[in-house]
Structures are given as C-alpha cells and as structure tokens.
C-alpha cells in the first residue's frame, strides 16, 4: 500500500480523492455503495444564504464524453445545512469541504461567517457557477470582483479558504493570483465550461436555462492545462478537477500541479468511481515504486 495521504492548508487527507461539489449531495445517497470514510474528502453541494429552488427542468443534457447541467444552486440554505447536514457529515471520518456561493459579496461573507462557527474542515468558495444569473459568474470572470469577494470572506473566517475558479476566462492565472493576494489559502479548478445543446426536432435548447455547465472527460485536457498554468502562477496549493474518470487521470492532474483531485460527473457513470480511482492511484504508485503520492505533485517536466 503506497502512502496516499496529502496535506493541504494544514488539513490532513487520507487520500487525495474528493467527490466534487454538486455531484454527491451531502453523501447520504452514496453511502448505499461504500463507506464515506474511504474518501479523502467530500465537497458538499453549493450552499447559499437562503434556501434556493434552482433552475427549472430539464437541467441535464448529454454531450459527447460529458454532460451539461443547469441545476443552479438548488439548496436548503446555510442554516438548514449547518443544522441538518453538517453534523451528520462531520461524523463520517473524512474531510468536509463546505462549498458556498452567493449572489452578493455580503451573502458569501454571511454564509462563510456562519460556517466559521462550525467544525467544518474547509470552505470552498465557488465564484464560478455559470448557472446563476445574479452575479455568480461575474465574480469568477473579473479579477477585481474575485479579489473582493475573497477578501470579504477571508475577513470573517479562519477556516482554510479554497476559492473555486471558473475556466470561462481569458486568463485563469490572473484570477488565481488575484484571489491569492486577497487571502485565499488554496484554489480549486476547474468548474464547468459554459455550453449549450439544442434539440433540432423542437428547435429548443435541451436545457430550460438555455445554457449550462459542461463537465466530463471531454474537458479533461482543459483542466490539465489550467491546473498546470495555475500551479506555476501561485504559491498556494491547487486542487484539480474536470473530467477525471480514472486513477491515471488523477495522477496526471497531480503531476500537472494539483495537491488533491476532485471527481465530478464520473460518479454518475459509476457511483464507485471515487473509490476505484483511489485504488488505481495506489496501483500506479506501487507499480512505479513511488512511496508517497506527494512525491508526484507538480513533477511534470515541460519541454
């Protein structure tokens, strides 16, 4: 057994694999399949100040080697989360990343402040959800706004703060540097690419929201590139994601510079994907006689 543990912002992960925010709910549904303690961590569904109903359906569209979603930030609100979901999750012996979002800087700060008073391990501030009209995406696509919202959240919490970045930008490294300067302890990337599908028989967009977020294997090369660029641009740790479906993919993202890896829609194809990926990473390390997964982080040798 290779040593799979990683350490990010002072938090110990038993392995680097974390189901990504939005695909895993609060973990309950996947407990039917395996013990949540097998996971390095869990990123919870994005939580906002108040309960939100999300976008109308259809919210899901299939695409080649991927999917679009326009769930939006459907969630029961931070108070409900803290009372009814978090205590349960915190018993699961895995790192909990509370993913948060908001339409305004104030909302993000309010949610973070409430979490600061809990035992949650890390806060993942999503400034990149493309499915919320009132500002969500705007935070993630402007250096200035990204910095401001990060600073506001930083002010109200001592928890390790991960800022989750949007790939729908000209320069992800500029945004990353700006949230680093504003006090982020880590960045996670990539969120979904903005995409669209049209049903040619009805001439209607498949998604009721018209556009949605593209995830899945098809975007993996974009994730590798952005993780590599970002890891070279900032000093804080990078958590990588986007299209990971195998242990090899996870290894590749870590070589590109990720300190841990989130697994998103692969969970839909195979609910066991996260635990299989952990096993496959171990197999790769053993075969290549690498004692600890930490040895591979950022080891890509560019030409």
């Amino acid at each position, binding site marked *: 057994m290779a040593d799979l543990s990683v350490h990010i912002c002072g938090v110990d992960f038993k392995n680097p694999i974390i189901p990504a925010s*939005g*695909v*895993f*709910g609060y973990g*309950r*549904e*996947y407990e*039917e*399949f395996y013990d949540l303690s097998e996971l390095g961590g869990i990123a919870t*569904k994005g939580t906002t100040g108040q309960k939100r*109903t*999300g*976008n*109308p*359906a*259809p*919210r*899901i*569209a*299939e695409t080649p*080697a*991927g*999917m679009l*979603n326009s*769930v939006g930030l*459907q969630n029961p609100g931070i108070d409900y989360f803290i009372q009814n979901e978090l205590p349960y999750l915190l018993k699961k012996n895995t790192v909990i990343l509370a993913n948060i979002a908001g339409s305004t800087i104030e909302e993000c700060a309010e949610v973070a402040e409430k979490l600061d008073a809990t035992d949650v391990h890390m806060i993942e501030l999503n400034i990149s959800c493309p499915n919320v009209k009132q500002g969500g995406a705007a935070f993630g696509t402007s250096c200035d706004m990204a910095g401001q919202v990060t600073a506001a959240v930083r002010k109200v919490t001592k928890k390790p703060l991960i800022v989750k970045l949007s790939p729908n930008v000209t320069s992800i490294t500029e945004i990353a540097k700006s949230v680093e300067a504003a006090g982020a302890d880590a960045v996670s990337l990539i969120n979904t690419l903005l995409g669209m599908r049209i049903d040619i028989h009805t001439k209607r967009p*498949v998604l009721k929201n018209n556009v949605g977020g593209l995830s*899945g*294997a098809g975007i993996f090369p974009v994730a590798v590139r952005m993780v590599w660029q970002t890891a070279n641009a900032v000093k804080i740790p990078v958590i990588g994601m986007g299209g990971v479906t195998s242990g090899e993919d996870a290894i590749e993202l870590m070589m590109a510079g990720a300190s841990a890896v989130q697994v998103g*829609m692969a*969970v*839909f*194809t*195979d*609910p*066991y994907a996260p635990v299989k990926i952990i096993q496959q990473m171990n197999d790769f390390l053993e075969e290549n006689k690498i004692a600890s997964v930490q040895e591979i982080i950022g080891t890509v040798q560019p030409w």
Partner: protein
Amino acid sequence: MKYLQGNYQIMHKQALNRDVYSMIMHCPEIAELAQPGQFVHILPKGFSLRRPISIAGIDRKNGTLRIVFVIKGKGTQAIANLNTGDYIDVIAPLGHGFTLMPEAAHVVLVGGGIGVPPMLPLADYYKDKATVISGFRSFPQVILQEDIEASGARAICCTEDGSAGAIKGFVTTPLEQLLSEGADAVFACGSLPMLKAVTDVCMRNHTYCEISMEERMACGVGACLGCACKIKKEGQEQFLHVCKNGPVFNAEEVCW
C-alpha cells in the same frame, strides 16, 4: 431506500415490435427489493450518462427483473443491441414506486404507449381487482395485452385510429366510464398530455390518482438535483426530484 449497482446477465430478449424490446435480467438481490413503479438506471456501453427505464416485471422466485423500452436515441439503441447472455450495468431499484393498497376493491391502471410496461407489476399485484386501460396510436404499437390478461387483470385496449382494441380514441373515454362506476385509485404512466388528462378526469371524479413522471437524469439516486419536478405540498411549490421523491407522485400535487 436500498439500491445496488452491478452487471447482470440478460436471460431473455424479445422484440415486441420494430422499436420496442423486452429484456429479462437475472439480478436476485435487486428483484428482492424491487417495487412496482421503481426504475433501473442503465449504463449503455461507451456513454457517460445512464438511462432510466421502469421495471416492467418482478419475479422474486426466479430472481429476475423485466424491462420494456422503446429505441429513442443512441443510448436505448445501444441497450437494444445487447443480446441474451450479455451483461448489463444497472443501478436499481431506484425511486419511489406506486402506493400498494391491499384493501382496494378496484383500481384502474392507465398506460399510454411505452407507459404501459410499468403497469405490469401493478397488474401482477392487484390481479383481478385491476382494470388496465392501455392507449396506443395504432395497431403496430400495441404491446403487452396478453401479459396483462395473464396477470388476471381486465385489459381494455384503445387505439387512436381504432385499428386495434375495443375502443377507438383516448384512454380517458373508458376511464370516465370506470370512475363513474367507482374505483379506489388510478395509477398512470404515459405522455405528459395523457397524464394531465387522466389527472383531470380523476380530480373531477374525486378519485385518488398517482402518476409516474419523467425527467432527464444524471445520478438517479437523488444526489445531483438534476431531475427537478415542481410539486405543490401544503400549498407550497417546491422542486422535488423524480429519481428519489418520484417517479411516482400524487397527481394532485404535480405542478404542470
């Protein structure tokens, strides 16, 4: 709720007509748990999203489940290409099925087109206490009438053009008739317009009605919030999820 993921062997495959296939898979653990109205979430090889297909037969003795599906796009085409002996990747049983009413004296099951198959497990349950109204466009689409009769239920078949079955027209005609004679409940599956019409008839006749809804799904287990469906509970509209809270909903609570 308890469900499993696994690769299960196809024991039997049959074409019911040009586009509709019936398959029976050997999955004892799932058959043990399955309830009428639940569905299986099938991964066609090479795809990244699964396809939800209703359970059309539960045989606990033989440890098998049956599904009946129409080839709609590439995913169902890929499933239809599987043969007896092949393995099929499913998560099941999923969702919240139809309410089983052991005390009921007479229930009406209404299926439209590819909405007929999920009525079979209900017919098997209610037997001669059930009347199954099936509606189809035309003769070539008619399926499963012998299976309904074999369950002991009464079968009423309607076709829009009168080319088959006792009734020319929509399922609502015999439904009105049956409800006026009295029924404890109606259970329905089919196209949205049909479900809406059935709900209207039931509400007018003050008959309890449950309908099976469809929505595009990702996880199938209630985690991703993809399959939202607007439901009114205690006067409040909210997004529930077809895969977990449904697919079967109280017809009165659905926001159309």
